[in-house]
């Protein structure tokens, strides 16, 4: 059996890739994809611990996480569409009208 540490390392790697994407990219779509990566890193953790403890609750939570991600994407894409209509671009650093 593959030890739990391997899954956790995978999860940490995926999370960091997502975080890196958010911090460095400007395209809103890439942003969205990075957020998905981070969510799925969390899902991997759920499943890994579920396997480790022999408890199905973590798997159920992973299913919830996927549903949540789907909902989030739906809203995120809607926001990006509106962003494009207003600024003719999907660069997140250009939409700076909501500020102090």
């Amino acid at each position, binding site marked *: 059996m593959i030890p739990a540490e391997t899954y956790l390392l995978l999860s940490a790697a995926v999370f960091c890739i997502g*975080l890196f994407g*958010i*911090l460095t990219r*400007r395209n809103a779509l890439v942003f969205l994809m990075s957020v998905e990566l981070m969510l799925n890193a969390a899902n991997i953790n759920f499943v890994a611990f579920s396997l480790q403890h022999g408890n199905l609750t973590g798997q159920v939570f992973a299913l919830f996480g996927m549903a949540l991600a789907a909902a989030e994407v739906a809203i995120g894409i809607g926001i990006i569409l509106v962003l494009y209509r207003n600024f003719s671009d999907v660069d*997140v*650093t250009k*939409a*700076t009208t909501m*500020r*102090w």
Partner: protein
Amino acid sequence: MAAFTYAPAIVLLPFVSFLVALFAGDRMPKGGALAGITATGGSLLLSIWVALTVAGGGYHNEFVYTWVAGVESVTLRFGLLLDPLSALMLLIVTLISFLVHIFSLGYMNDEDETGLPRYYAGLGLFTASMLGFVVANNLLMAFMFFELVGLCSYLLIGFWFREDGPPSAAKKAFLVTRFGDYFFLIGVVGIFATFGTGLFAPITQNGEVVAQSFPVLAEHAVVDGETEAIAMLDTVGLSAQAWFTVLGLLVLGGVVGKSAQFPLHTWLPDAMEGPTPVSALIHAATMVAAGVYLVARMYGFYAISPTALAVIALIGGFTALFAATMGLVKQEIKQVLAYSTISQYGYMMLALGSGGYIAAVFHLTTHAVFKALLFLGAGSVIIAMHHNENMWDMGGLKEKMPVTYWTFLSGSLALAGIVPFAGFWSKDEVLYEALIHGFGTEGGLGTAYLVAYAMGLLAVFFTGFYTFRMVYLTFHGDARSDTARNPHGVRWNVKGPLAVLGVLAATVGFINMKPVAKLTGAHIDFLHAWLAGPDEGGWPAALVTSSHHYEGLLHDVAHVTAGYPLNETPTLLASAAVSLGLALAGAGAATALYRGSDPVEHTDKLGSLKTLLMHNYYQDEYQVWLATGLTYPLARAMDKFDQGVVDGVVNGISSVSLFGGSRIRRIQSGVVSNYATLLTLGLVLLLAIFGLAGGWF
């Protein structure tokens, strides 16, 4: 008792006349005067009925209306207390008010004054408030009507508000009495907090006490030591008697303000700016009498406190002398009368303080009659003189206005205390009570009585002097001005009230001729019997407001006892002879100095003393100095503290927040990437803190 069913109407009738005069006065003939005359006449008749019922052993103490129902706390109610004291006072107030209304026809209507509806509305409300105060059966109701009386005096003193003097005098009267009422209010709250009731006399049903009164509770606490029910005593940490003295003195603040006692007497001479019938009403029956009446009403509460009694006696004696000296040099007829009022109320306070409850009520009665007479007489003179009040412009009015002269003379003899006019009997009894209690009482209280007695006795001489100086200057000698040579006539509506009061001033003293009663052994001291109430089996609950009960309290608690330097009857006669002799000496001195056809201002010989007296001992100046020199800088300093320190702290906190907010809001840049960076940094920081604190590294 049918009379008691209609008793609320005594108060309500003048109130209705107030509403009628206010809203319909300008559409009525005489500007609403007839409504006022009818209402006060009706009140007078009802008061007579009530007095007759009380004379027949009737007594009434019931609540009429509950306006705050307390749950496990104080309930605030209006109620009527009709006993000999309030029945007598009702008679006085309604009679004087009725006569003043009639007199006003001559003084206001015949002189074509404007604003008559306002005037008669004021008179109506004034009378109604005073009557409400008189019948009040609890302290809070009394306080409310006491304040209404103050408001009405403000409205009426400032009646001629287009001139300079009256509005200023009205404000002064309002503010000075309000200063005293401030203490009264604290006293009322204190009494409610201490006893949980403000009742003057217990309410009984079928011989059972259903609501106890505060003087009786206080008496039980002091005499029998039943202090368990009074939780307040633990809070203040004083003995029962000391705390009741404090409460009594607080209430006395309102009395000193309203009854124009030193040092709050300064409003009263200025109140002469109002119309003269109003002065008569204020001085004789309504406002100024309220203070003394209040002390008499809750006398059971004062009788258990020797300190309060001594303070009352000393204030009274001092005020009697102090005001009488100022009356010596005044040039305006109403000013002389104003100072005589202050002085005479000083006598009443002296009597109350020195255990002469009956003497005080007696002097209140006779004074109401003769002072109303003198003010109305002065009003008649002022009509004749075309509103010139300076006595040095008068003279020789005796032949031209005989009715005014003879009635005024009757009032003056009463004021000076010449036998057999009313003032003699009452003032003599006041001084006699102070004398015998001064001799009999041991310790500081007896000394205080003797000092107060000496001041009161000295004031008798001055009273005789200024009274007859006024009479001679006004009515005798040669006319000293054109108006005095050819005075304006007065009609029946002026002469009628004067005639009624003139006869009363000569005769009302016969209700209580104590020296004659002692000499002949006849029971003709009717007022003693009246205030003592029916004998055994009359009205048991009411016995706590009878003069017998008060005498017992004074003797047992305050240890006020009578002592006689000679035997009892010789002392009584000697006291009467001394006060009569001094009054005659004063009157004689005035006669000698001012009798001639062209009198001169003998008071000029007093030199700087006259200046001092003319300036009223600089009382006004020192009170103005207190306000501008002391209170104002103090208020400014407080304002600085408030604006600078208290507000400064509040403003400082808010400006720090504003400044901080304006800086920190810069991080909200609108760029999503920055937010993400901040979030990540925050997470890293949290992890680092947890790591360091948790010892992961």
